[in-house]
């Protein structure tokens, strides 16, 4: 498995999906060797180093009883790749890294190594210097990851290579080429989702090569499958859909926020990028506030559009009703869901969209854009076209004004997500593997 972002290094749905799927494959008894790029330096903010140690403990391979995995091996390789990275963000981060000695130190504390099997939690093995990893550009790191992954692959027994999203496709192709094992590429997003029609040609070429070189393509939705077929020229027979799922809590309803407040909270949670449609959220917020002044719109996340988004809030004159929380993780995500009366995902192009499932699992009603993969499997949510800000405001107001609507959306929505399990997704993946191995 050539994948991404194991907790706690989660910056979005890709990591959540890799984790959920791997955990379920593990439960099905499939042995997974997970080759994880070192993303640490990029997420090394406050507490980054501390969290990484906890993560290392948690992910120790072939662990003792309390460990969640039984058949998993994690192999960390020193390629500095970050999920959702682009050549631009890479250069920016590289510049930051050059200045940030503290961050480099945090990276040096990283206890995992390439060569040691079984990933010792202590500091043994090769320690990597963060500065060195930033040599070259993103594409060089992609190639580096491919080279290191191939080195691991020749030592490991396995049957299928499973690569998640474009930065691992070259590695997948290389591993498959060297070992002769079949390649499955898993498309969680495409360059068209991330960049609209201003695609990065290099990225597109890598995606296309990966898809054409793969024996099977797993797409997270029909929405994505259609893009794969129409924009990448892939034969429909090769592409199948395996939906993502969500880990539901054990059914206990969460207590509502104990704070008494006369404000309703509408939540945006996601990367603040073009793909996620933050400006449509704010335009709808402006409309909704015309009818109902006591709403707080919370924007949780960070991204390359954060500055433009803050400026837009000022231009619209709704500053006192909008709160930016920055990037949230772990318990803070739970907390913000618990406070929310409504979650809105106004994505312009969303291959799947795990966050709405998380909102539903926190008992929060959901509005999603029709331009999302998740809208193919959710019926008990409200759906809008991302550009239709009047309708978005209409629906936001309806949920906030009519408790019976909230109630039915909650009741039916939580019932619906209980039917989505990673185990089913993993079984579908297993079928794909089996079709290739026989």
């Amino acid at each position, binding site marked *: 498995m050539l994948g991404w972002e194991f907790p706690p290094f989660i910056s979005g749905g890709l990591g959540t999906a890799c984790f959920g799927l791997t955990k379920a494959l593990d439960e099905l008894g499939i042995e997974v060797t997970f080759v994880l790029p070192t993303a640490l330096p990029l997420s090394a903010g406050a507490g980054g180093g501390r969290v990484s140690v906890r993560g290392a403990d948690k992910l120790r391979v072939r662990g003792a009883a309390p460990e969640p995995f039984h058949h998993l091996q994690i192999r960390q390789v020193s390629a500095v790749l970050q999920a959702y990275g682009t050549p631009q963000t890479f250069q920016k981060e590289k510049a930051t890294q050059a200045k940030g000695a503290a961050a480099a130190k945090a990276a040096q504390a990283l206890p995992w190594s390439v060569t040691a099997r079984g990933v010792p939690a202590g500091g043994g093995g090769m320690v990597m210097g963060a500065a060195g990893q930033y040599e070259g550009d993103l594409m060089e790191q992609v190639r580096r990851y491919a080279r290191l992954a191939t080195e691991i692959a020749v030592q490991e027994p396995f049957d299928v290579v499973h690569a998640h999203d474009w930065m691992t496709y070259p590695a997948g192709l290389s591993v498959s080429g060297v070992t002769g094992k079949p390649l499955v590429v898993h498309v969680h997003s495409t360059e068209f989702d991330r960049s609209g029609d201003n695609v990065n040609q290099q990225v597109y070429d890598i995606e296309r090569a990966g898809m054409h070189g793969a024996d099977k393509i797993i797409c997270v939705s029909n929405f994505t499958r259609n893009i794969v077929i129409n924009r990448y020229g892939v034969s429909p027979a090769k592409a199948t859909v395996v939906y993502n799922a969500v880990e539901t809590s054990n059914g206990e309803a969460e207590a509502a926020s104990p704070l008494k407040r006369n404000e309703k909270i509408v939540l945006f949670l996601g990367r603040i990028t073009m793909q996620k449609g933050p400006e449509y959220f704010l335009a709808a917020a402006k409309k909704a506030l015309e009818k109902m002044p006591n709403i707080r719109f919370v924007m949780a996340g960070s991204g390359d559009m954060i500055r433009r988004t803050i400026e837009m809030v000022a231009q619209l004159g709704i500053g006192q009703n909008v709160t930016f929380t920055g990037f949230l993780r772990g318990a803070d995500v739970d907390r913000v869901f618990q406070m929310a009366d409504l979650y809105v995902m106004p994505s312009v192009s969303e291959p799947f969209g795990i966050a709405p499932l998380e909102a539903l699992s926190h008992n929060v009603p959901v509005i999603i854009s029709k331009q999302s993969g998740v809208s193919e499997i959710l019926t008990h949510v409200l759906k809008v076209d991302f550009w239709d800000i009047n309708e978005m405001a*209409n629906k936001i107001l*309806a949920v906030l004004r009519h408790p019976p609507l909230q109630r*039915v959306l909650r009741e039916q929505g939580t019932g619906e997500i209980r039917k989505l399990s990673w185990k089913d997704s993993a079984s579908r993946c297993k079928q794909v593997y089996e079709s290739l191995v026989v």
Partner: protein
Amino acid sequence: MASVVFYFQVHQPYRLRRYSIFDTEPTYFDDYKNEQICHKVSEKCYLPATQAILDMVRRHEGRFRVSYSLTGTVIEQFKRYNPEVLKVFEALAKTGCVEFISETYYHSLSFLYSRNEFIEQTNMHCRLIEDLFGQTPRVFRNTELTYNNDVAQVVHDMGFTAVLAEGADYVLGYRSPTYVYNPPNRPDLRLLLKNYRLSDDVAFRFSNRGWKEWPLKAEKFAGWINQINGNGYVCNLFMDYETFGEHQWADTGIFDFLRALPGEVLKYRDNDFLTVSEAADRYPAAGEIDVPHMTSWADTERDLSAWLGNAMQANALHEIFRLEDDIKAAGDPVLLADWRKLQTSDHFYYMCTKYFSDGDVHKYFNPYESPYDGYINFMNIIDNLRHRIADSVESAESPRLGMGKSP
């Protein structure tokens, strides 16, 4: 003797236009879509089916007889969009072989919320039928066959001689819908119960190729009806009129079936056709049927859950009927008619979340993408209606300002 009692329900609601919270105009109905649907269903069903029935009545010289209920909302739309349909119905009424049943003018669930409104709408409907077809309804059926002992009580007091209901298993128990019954303590009111097996063979299963009786021919069906001989008197075939040509398309052979059936039934010398009140008059009651809870002909549950099964539906119904006193006090006939059109049960059926994920019959008839959209739209319209009531009360209080229309 087996008497076939056909009763067809003819209904179209006034579908609502998309109404956002930002809308302010007091126009709620999607005239364009309503006209389109009225034209389409008239062409596929109402005209050919009614013509077929008229032909059969004439061919069998009055031995083929049927009953109808046409709601006020469908009659209004015929008058406006397809008057030729009413012409055929009028011709049918003149044969004397057709009986028209009464119901609430607006196909509403008013019985559950307001006895006054229920009686007013039923009287309105009776007057409409008298004006149009020259006969006074003697038999009552409540919206979607919703029925319980209280309905029987009220319509008995209004002077009806018979009432129709669903022959649900849990209502009948071991008894058969092939007999005529009466409600508890109402020996003079007849209760006709739908024979749902045979009715649904036509209405739902007719074109189902997976059904072991497919294809259903009139001869075979007449044979099943004949089996009632010795086990009862009536075969109550109650169904939506749209079965003919709209639910079951013409290419399924449904019209051939309809045209062949009277002859096949009448081949058996003991069998005949009766209208609802003729059946009620001819046959004695075989016993009392006690129905304390509301029943209906919808879904497998045959209860109110299709209209009142979730919190949105309960809320929307409650909110619309809560306006009754204010609407009636305002004394504005346009406002009153709008309010009543919003009571039509279809609006609440669209908000049903039962089976929604499965994409079944509820979805097919739903003009909205989801039950939630249906609720939101409806509640936005009620909001506007409330504003209009407030405006008209204000203008009534200050007559000098009340000359113009409210903004």
